[in-house]
């Protein structure tokens, strides 16, 4: 080995050590606040936990918890499939609507700055309890959702329309549509932001060249905008999936699986073991869906980049 090459490999090794130094805080945090609790929770999922005065006692039950929720619990499997079905139509809807709005907001017109700030507004208010509470669906002290606080959504709108003398059938139809649009739009903030920033990176010359060849705006969308947005679409699909899987929920609204897991573990029964196994199964499902999304969209995105 020549001196120079030796120097370089030494340098490389030293740099590798610096790399570990930079991520060391994370590694410690990962061990303390993730890996150890995660292993414990995995262990819990194979046990039955009993609360007692001195703490809790574990009894090894093997895969009983998993068998119970899959085979004997009448509620959990329907909740899971319900969540999956809902996601299967919500994710495409959110992503396509976001792309559509981003394309509109990328065009130059008067008032664009105003509309942009309105469409990113959900980023501010969608996360967490504020949104759920504002939807008027929560009585969070007990975490059992009841439709009692008519804070947000279209109940207020319905009042206004009824007050204006509209027949109730029309009012109901209007509120239904507004509610759907509202709840979907509320999930689009970050996605619109990402699409828009991606669209702004497409050089204007690309469009100019295609305009010279006589392409219409419609052609441009399919031949330039959409293909070049594919990598961001993948990012958005993943973000939307994770966001909807992680969403806060109550029995009646939001993410019902999360609510059920919480209720099992921290409700009246304190069935930590069962709750742990539920969440592990749920996590496995999330991973599968993400892998599927990657398989479907990842290749298309990679082909575009090549």
């Amino acid at each position, binding site marked *: 080995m020549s001196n120079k090459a030796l120097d370089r490999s030494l340098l490389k090794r030293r740099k590798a050590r610096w790399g570990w130094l930079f991520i060391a805080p994370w590694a410690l945090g990962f061990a303390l606040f993730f890996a150890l609790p*995660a292993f414990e929770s995995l262990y819990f999922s194979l046990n039955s936990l009993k609360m007692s005065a001195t703490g809790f006692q574990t009894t090894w039950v093997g895969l009983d918890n998993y068998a119970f929720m899959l085979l004997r619990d009448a509620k959990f499997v329907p909740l899971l499939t319900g969540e999956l079905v809902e996601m299967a139509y919500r994710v495409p809807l959110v992503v396509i609507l976001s792309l559509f709005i981003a394309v509109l907001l990328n065009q130059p017109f008067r008032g664009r700055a105003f509309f942009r700030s309105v469409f990113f507004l959900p980023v501010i208010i969608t996360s967490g309890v504020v949104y759920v509470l504002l939807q008027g669906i929560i009585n969070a002290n007990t975490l059992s959702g009841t439709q009692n606080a008519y804070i947000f959504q279209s109940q207020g709108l319905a009042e206004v329309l009824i007050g204006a003398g509209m027949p109730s059938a029309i009012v109901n139809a209007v509120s239904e549509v507004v509610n759907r649009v509202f709840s979907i739009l509320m999930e689009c903030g970050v996605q619109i932001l*990402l699409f828009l920033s991606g669209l702004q990176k497409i050089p204007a010359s690309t469009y100019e060249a295609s305009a010279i060849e006589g392409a219409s705006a419609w052609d441009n969308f399919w031949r330039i905008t959409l293909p070049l947005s594919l990598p961001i679409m993948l990012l958005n699909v993943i973000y939307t999936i994770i966001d909807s899987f992680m969403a806060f929920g109550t029995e009646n609204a939001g993410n019902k699986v999360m609510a059920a897991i919480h209720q099992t573990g921290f409700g009246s029964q304190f069935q930590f073991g069962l709750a742990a196994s539920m969440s592990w199964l749920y996590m496995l499902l999330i991973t599968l869906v993400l892998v599927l999304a990657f398989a479907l969209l990842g290749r298309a995105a990679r082909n575009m980049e090549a």
Partner: protein
Amino acid sequence: MSMPLRKHTPSLKARLRRAARIGFKLGRFALLLALSFVLIYPLLYMLSNAFKPFMQTYDPAVIWLPKSLTMENINDAVQILDFGKAALNTLQTAVVTSVIQVAACMVVGYGFARFNFRGSKIAFLLVVLTMIVPQQTISTSLYTTYRYFDPLGIMSLLSLVTKGALENHLNLIDKPWLFWLPAMLGMGLRSGIYIFVYRQFFLSMPRELEEAAEIDGCNPVSTFWHVMLPNAGTVVLTVLLFALVWNWNDYYTPAMFMKNHNTLATALASFQSNLQNLGAIGGNYTDTALVATRMQAAGLLVIAPLLILYAFTQRFFVQSVERTGLTGM
């Protein structure tokens, strides 16, 4: 003068195209306006109700603009939320935590972006893993971790050395440290996303910058400090904004681990039942209109700081995400 122009009337085709363009513009504007209304409506509703005397809810003549304004709803909401205390707690759990996250995730993201070392790919995969494991999965164990906090047996050791003068664990429950410690170690709320964003950003920095610094005798830490950091303004601000918003609105963590210290989010969650408890000791706190107006006022109080922050930073949002390199092509 204008006479000759009139002779050339545009062809039918050109006129149709013009009409189509105007139609498209009008349609676009109408659609955006309608969708915007759906998004702004809740805020307007909130604003209208927060300052409305509740009896006017029953007045059919009052739809948006109350006949008179009142501070009663706001005053009641301030009391029931225990606003001062909850805001101070939120300052600790959300604002301080966000600042810590911004700094810690930057260091870690930089490590993942600029160094090639064995295990870095697997470690980064584990970062992604922390993003997809629901909090609920590990929160039971996290509770005992915080309640009997004894990292790597250090507290036990200290207890042994001091012959029991120190306890063999710390109790972090109900203390802001349970937000700050994980944040310092890159494991705060959604820290995985921030590490990811920082990594993408630092990946986009030119190699030459680093090499030039090394020739000038910088070690990796001083390169990071003197060369990379001054260029990271936008990504820092982006992460800070998102961290502020997500920490501010987070309900799960404070509800799980801060039983005796309400943040604004948890105070808002229990607002209605607290309001109705007031009704139990006299007072007319069960009237639905009264409950609704008070709740609107409380909701407004909780998100007002975020809305003000957003009003000042919204122009920056699109540019910032663009410049982080997250959507780089």
